[in-house]
């Protein structure tokens, strides 16, 4: 499963959003996700991908921005050989 699909499904599960309304270019505030809700969502991302998300993310505006950031962190983890566990999905491979 691609990272986008995982992120979309997480958004749908956590906030009961319409999956059809979520595209890579969808702005977070367009689906009602303000900065506070986004910060709460970081926990769901960390749990799913076994990552530590940066606390300050002013550059994240769209769903695609989240996907890009997750992918960058996953790639960095693979390159450094560090990580908190094996990926449960083929997110990096599929996304590349």
């Amino acid at each position: 499963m691609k990272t986008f699909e995982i992120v979309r499904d997480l958004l749908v599960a956590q906030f009961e959003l319409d999956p059809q309304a979520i595209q890579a270019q969808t702005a977070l505030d367009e689906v009602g996700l303000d900065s506070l809700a986004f910060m709460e969502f970081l926990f769901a991302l960390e749990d799913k991908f076994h990552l530590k998300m940066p606390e300050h993310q002013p550059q994240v505006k769209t769903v695609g921005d989240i996907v890009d950031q997750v992918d960058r962190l996953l790639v960095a983890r693979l390159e450094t050989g560090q990580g908190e566990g094996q990926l449960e999905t083929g997110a990096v491979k599929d996304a590349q």
Partner: protein
Amino acid sequence: MRKVVVTGMGILSPTGTGKDEFFANLLNGRSGVQRLRDPFVDKLTTKIAAPTLFQGEHHLSRLKCATLDRTTQLALVAATQAITDAAIDIDGVDTERIGVYWGTGMGSAHTVEDCYAGLFSDAHYRVRPATVVMAMNNAAASQIALDFGLLGPSLTYSSACSSSAVAIGEALRAIRAGIIDRAIVGGADALLTYGTMRAWDALRTLAVEDIDDPGSSCRPFSADRTGFVLGEGAAALVLEEAHSASARAAKIYAELAGYGASTDARHIARPDAQGQARAILAALADAGLAPADLGYINAHGTATQVGDAVETEALKLSLGSYASTIPISSTKALHGHLMGAAGATELVVSLLAMQRGCVPPTAHYRILDPACDLDYVTEGARHGVPLGAVMSNSFAFGGNNAVLVAKDWDR
């Protein structure tokens, strides 16, 4: 002096959602008290409470609920009910002249407790980013203002059991003084958490469970009373300056006519009849009414041994011989003690009693206590009774007393 009227009411309580279901259950003596099923119940001495059947996600989006404590969710839905009931077009009125005056005792107990429980037991616990804005005591007032675009003052009052009565009384004064023309008022608390319940357990003021019928465990004014039952919920009202309400042809429930506030300054927890009597007299004087004008009193009536006897004494001190002729009931027997929401909830009870000419009973009364010898409406609801004017008492820990008086708008 500018008069203030009530034009909308909303309630989420252990005895029902919405004013009609809520009041019907009170008249029928249907109790919201029950044995809790939470996993922590085994660790409690008192295993009963009065929970409100409420899931925020049935009323608000999951996205919205994600950053609102249960208390704020309850508050927001009750306020929405009240504003809908008032049929007020917010866009058509001056929102800078609408305030939010809200009461809460514990604030956001669930958020605070969840955070501390995780933080103190797990070195890797992640504190939720929204913790501060969810937990702050003004979260509910702010959220109501935010959702409805209300630009006047949004104020939060926290004086334990009298919080929402104080909030309502202070809004009454603000409208009279011309500071605002309208206010969304009320209170909310959701504190049926393990830590909070253990704290109340330790204070030994909670009712002993009636094993045969847990719903009847709280017995105000009865000689065998053992204390109150913790509850949760929210109640909201819309207050409007009378001419503003009339100008938009609003339905008017009653005039909010009087507010009396006092402090015992005697003891942090033990109530004082003198202090309570001063608040009662102040509320009557504020309303320009005499004891003979009152048709019903909703007592604070917590069902503690001391509390009910002291309130009875205060009623006698303030009302003289009229204390024994005015119907008095404590509806806490059925909806429990809603803490920060209690004053607003019981004002709603009083207003509905007056509007419908029905006096709700003091349920579960069994045995006469010589120290409690007034008319507590113990035989069941009374119907077809014109009340004219009603009073609601709220007497809190800290010796904080707040009394509200309302009268028929047609009077």
